[in-house]
């Protein structure tokens, strides 16, 4: 009887402190959802004035004139897509090559410093890449500020993330598959195309999409090297242009009322675009990693 009472007492005391701790931990985890919801809510609210003023033309026209005020973001949306596409076109073959080199060619002794090299590249702040792009790349290598220059800088910046994710995915290829291919007389490249690539395809697509998301949202380096030209709806990579994050960073300082709202609307558009890309990418990567771990 006595001991039963003690147990009950202990349990209730324990339960209270424990529950408080569990709840605060749960609240901290829930903060992620709260912040994402707040981002969506607050940017939408502040973007409303310009969206009401411009309607659908905000997305379908490319005349951007804060003085009038007329805000058409199409050229910037195009600039974001165009520079990201250039960055992806450059970064994907290189990242894939490095990831394959690390996992299939290099001996472990060489692979480890390579990982550090990629980490080092990831650790350089984007503004430093921008500075280098403005003062070195565009001045000494005759690459004027343009979509292409921005694409190149973005490519350098997303290579680390694509490489390390690809490496992770490629590493899950079963050794027995690879050895099987080699035992049948396949060369290294044939082994890669027959076992590694088909096995990792899903995850590689996810890695590329995550890189795409990063390239779309990268602000400062693009703001410095893209050229800040208005209304550039062109396929010419050598033309100076603009992208959504670059416009926001470059124009925020002098923006007033409706102009600010327009810039926030750009941020909202960018947020929605990157969220869609990232949702898809995360889903793809998680599914492939789960599948390959399961089998």
């Amino acid at each position, binding site marked *: 009887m006595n001991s039963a009472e003690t147990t009950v007492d202990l349990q209730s005391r324990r339960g209270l402190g424990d529950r408080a701790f*569990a709840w605060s931990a749960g609240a901290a985890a829930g903060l992620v959802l709260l912040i994402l919801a707040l981002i969506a809510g607050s940017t939408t609210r502040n973007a409303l004035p310009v969206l009401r003023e411009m309607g659908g033309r905000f997305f379908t026209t490319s005349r951007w004139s804060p003085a009038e005020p007329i805000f058409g973001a199409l050229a910037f949306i195009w600039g974001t897509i165009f520079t990201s596409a250039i960055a992806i076109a450059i970064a994907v073959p290189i990242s894939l090559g490095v990831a394959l080199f690390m996992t299939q*060619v290099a001996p472990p002794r060489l692979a480890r410093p390579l990982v550090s090299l990629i980490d080092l590249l990831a650790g350089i702040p984007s503004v430093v890449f921008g500075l280098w792009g403005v003062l070195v790349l565009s001045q000494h290598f005759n690459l004027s500020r343009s979509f292409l220059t921005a694409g190149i800088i973005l490519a350098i910046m997303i290579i680390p993330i694509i490489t390390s994710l690809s490496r992770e995915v490629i590493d899950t290829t079963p050794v027995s598959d690879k050895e099987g291919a080699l035992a049948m007389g396949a060369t290294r490249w044939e082994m890669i195309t027959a076992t590694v690539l088909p096995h990792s395809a899903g995850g590689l697509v996810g890695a590329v999409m995550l890189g795409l998301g990063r390239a779309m949202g990268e602000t400062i380096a693009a703001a410095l090297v893209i050229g800040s030209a208005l209304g550039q709806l062109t396929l010419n990579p050598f033309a100076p242009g603009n992208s959504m994050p670059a416009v926001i960073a470059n124009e925020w300082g002098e923006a007033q009322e409706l102009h600010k709202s327009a810039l926030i609307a750009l941020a909202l558009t960018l947020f929605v675009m990157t969220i869609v890309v990232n949702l898809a990418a995360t889903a793809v990567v998680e599914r492939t990693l789960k599948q390959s771990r399961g089998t």
Partner: protein
Amino acid sequence: MTAGTLDEPIIPGADLRATRSWRSIKSAIMTGLMTAAVVVVALPLVAVVGAVFSRGSRVALHGFPAFFVAEVPLIARKPGPGMGPAILGTLLATGAATLISVPLGVMGSVYLHEYGGRNVFSRVVRFMANVMTGVPSVVMGLFIYVLWTLHFGYSAFGGGLALACLMLPVVIGASEQMLRLVPDHLREAGYAVGASKSRTILTIVLPAAIPGIVSGALLAVARAAGETAPLLFAVGSASAYNPNLFKEANTALSLQIFGNATSSFVPAQDRAWGAALTLVLLTFVLTFVARLVTARFARRR
């Protein structure tokens, strides 16, 4: 690797050697391309780091330690130091971000791993945290502007809030991975001596995981210290020291680089290079310390 057997014709008349040599040439070419990719990646790294060190050290080490102490000249074309207020601003904003995001992130990860496990809520949070790492930093900056700066004005703390939002999902992910490495028998030992779940977590699980969590947090801090866009909208601009975390506009190394990079005055560009060197050194030191902690942890295990 397949030498020997294939050299002798298996089918009379069929020259297997010829096809084999084309296949191995192709393989060699592809291996060569992979190696070339590594060189291509190393090039910009060497070029950027080289430029930052050679141009930055000329400025930053001239009359040491003037560059790291003096205030930013108000007139851009005036040559000379310094970046003192920017260094302070970066430390204030990054410090505030760390103090906010690391405890919250670790608590979040404790929930995900120790309590939630595979329930729907924690699966959703884990997935959304992954998505959140991809939210552009410029969006985070505007979000904090709308939520904080509009009401309370520019301050280093606002920048810290924006950086904290960027760091939170990174810290959650890194520290959950570390909690996963803590063996279950440690938890069971805690319960066996009658400790409650929260006590077991606080006194056994977290201490066991702390080196990994510290190194993950340091990497997140290193990344945050280099961010520009989140600070752009919340910190404002200043050229004098502002030690007050909560009041008045401040500045930061990244903001100074961004502002001076497009200046047509060489002295301002020089200061940008000096600030870049300071920032790169700061992030490298943080990354290096994180590595040391990880290595120490790995050896002890």
